[in-house]
């Protein structure tokens, strides 16, 4: 359907109707929250969906707790799986109407056409990313946390000045890496890996002093994935949050934002956070 709109635009350009076409496209995405309840039903959304009648949701593979349980997005368990189904329900999609596709983290927020309606994969919203894709409103506010080897200096010595002296490692393109370079500003270049698992392996081998990632992931790494790691502390949130990723200017975001707003006000999001993410409040918060 979207291809048809592009073709129509092209035709309009030829006949000198560029302005009309441009304003139509912008109008759809720009007026966040303007969609009335009547516009956000399954049938009204049909023209905006990747596959008619289905809500196509993407995430990476494999996926980890507490965001997904048993590497299975379709079971409705884990925070992100539950949120995706809750949004679907809010828009009138039953559980069977939600289909999942696999999308690697890196390519999920690259510019270009997308094979999904939205991607839910702990993608932090940044202004740069927002130039390439369209983000929904927040479905989870994020804090960053330090993971280190048990018994290493950083576990006890992590004043802002001391933090600068450690060797960090992190995943390419992660907000943890951005936090390291922009907030901590260490004296040594950090090591930059293609995956968080590689950074973790490097940590386990004692090749880096610490890695920084969002508190939920850090907690899971320290408690389950890594034998010798500990979550040292977390940093105050810098306004970072996770958003759903849409193809740039996909008008569907309007109704999805509306659904997120409803889930926020009716307490669904906070109860899902308590259910799946409640353990993260206990860690001390320190200054970078």
């Amino acid at each position, binding site marked *: 359907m979207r291809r048809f709109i592009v073709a129509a635009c092209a035709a309009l350009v030829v006949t000198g109707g560029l302005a009309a076409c441009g304003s139509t496209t912008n109008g759809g995405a720009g007026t966040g929250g303007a969609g009335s309840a009547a516009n956000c039903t399954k049938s009204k959304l049909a023209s905006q969906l990747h596959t008619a009648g289905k809500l196509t949701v993407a995430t990476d593979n494999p996926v980890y707790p507490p965001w997904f349980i048993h590497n299975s997005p379709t079971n409705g368990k884990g925070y992100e799986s539950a949120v995706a189904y809750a949004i679907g329900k809010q828009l009138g999609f039953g559980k069977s109407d939600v289909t999942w596709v696999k999308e690697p983290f*890196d390519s999920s927020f690259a510019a270009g056409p997308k094979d999904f309606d939205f991607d839910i994969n702990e993608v932090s919203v940044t202004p740069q990313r927002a130039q390439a894709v369209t983000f929904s409103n927040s479905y989870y506010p994020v804090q960053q946390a330090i993971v280190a080897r048990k018994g290493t200096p950083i576990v006890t010595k992590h004043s802002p000045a001391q933090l600068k002296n450690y060797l960090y490692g992190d995943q*390419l*393109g992660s907000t943890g890496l*951005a936090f390291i370079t922009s907030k901590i*500003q260490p004296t040594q270049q950090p*090591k930059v890996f293609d995956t968080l698992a590689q950074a973790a392996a490097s940590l386990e*081998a004692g090749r880096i002093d610490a890695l920084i990632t969002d508190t939920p992931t850090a907690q899971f790494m320290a408690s389950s994935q890594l034998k010798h790691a500990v979550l040292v502390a977390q940093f105050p949130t810098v306004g970072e949050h996770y958003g759903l990723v849409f193809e740039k200017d996909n008008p569907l975001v309007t109704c999805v934002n509306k659904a997120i707003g409803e889930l926020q006000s009716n307490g669904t999001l906070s109860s899902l956070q308590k259910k799946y993410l409640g353990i993260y409040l206990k860690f001390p918060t320190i200054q970078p």
Partner: protein
Amino acid sequence: MDANSSWAPGQPAGAFTATGRGPRLFSGGGGTQAKVVSTVSTIVVLGALAAVFLLAPGARAVEHEFFSPPHLWHSFIGNPGQGYYSVGAAIWLNIRMFLVAEVLILALALFVALIRQSAAPMLFPIRILATIYVDFFRGVPLILVIFAFGFGVPALRLPFVSTQPDVVYGVAALVLSYSAYVSEVYRAGLNSVHFSQVSAARSLGLSHATSLRYVVLPQAVRNIIPPLLNDFISLQKDTALVGTLGVIEANKAAGIYSETVFNFSSFTVAAILFLILTIPLARFTDRLIERDRRRRLALGAP
């Protein structure tokens, strides 16, 4: 003791002489007409390619994503405060890795090739080991070798061995993998020297080692310089794989930029830098091939 060419001087060389680059396919004669035809066809082909690129529906987007001048510049010079590092500075690491690896590969590969070529019964177990080595490292993808070294060796927590910088593991993996290939190139070179050369050298009273050193190797190496340099051009680019160990080399620096700023122009910068490295070597290889061809055909200096 030079290997004789089948093209003796004075023999009509036909299409060989026209361009000085050996037999050409699709040769259509020379002269003004040829120049006109080649100019027109070049313009048509390049024009068509440019048209495809410039008139594509996404041409503007691609131009912005890959060829944006400010992004090209920013990624080249870097800005750690903004979370990305200079691609231009990072290429130095690739160059250093390449230079060190190249020397080690030349030595190790020759050693392996000589073992595999040796006939001494006493060396049989080492020959077997050398064969296994070549089979193994040619068969396993380089990136896995780099992984195994970069993550596996430090995880062993051995003194000294496990505490080296990541580039050391990366270069070690490059050397082991490429030496397996290059040893086969050496072997091809050694095999290309006719056995009568050795017989002649030995009959002159040269020892086995001396005839190898002064008769066989010089001829063998001259024959394999093009494929050898071909492998080194490939090696220059494969230094980028060491980035998987967390090392910020050019490709990794470009990746960090694109993930931070959401623009791929940094990869264009890395590509240009790699081209600047490899093209001179490629042209140099062409010159060596041409020089060798002329010498063998006795066509005189180019």
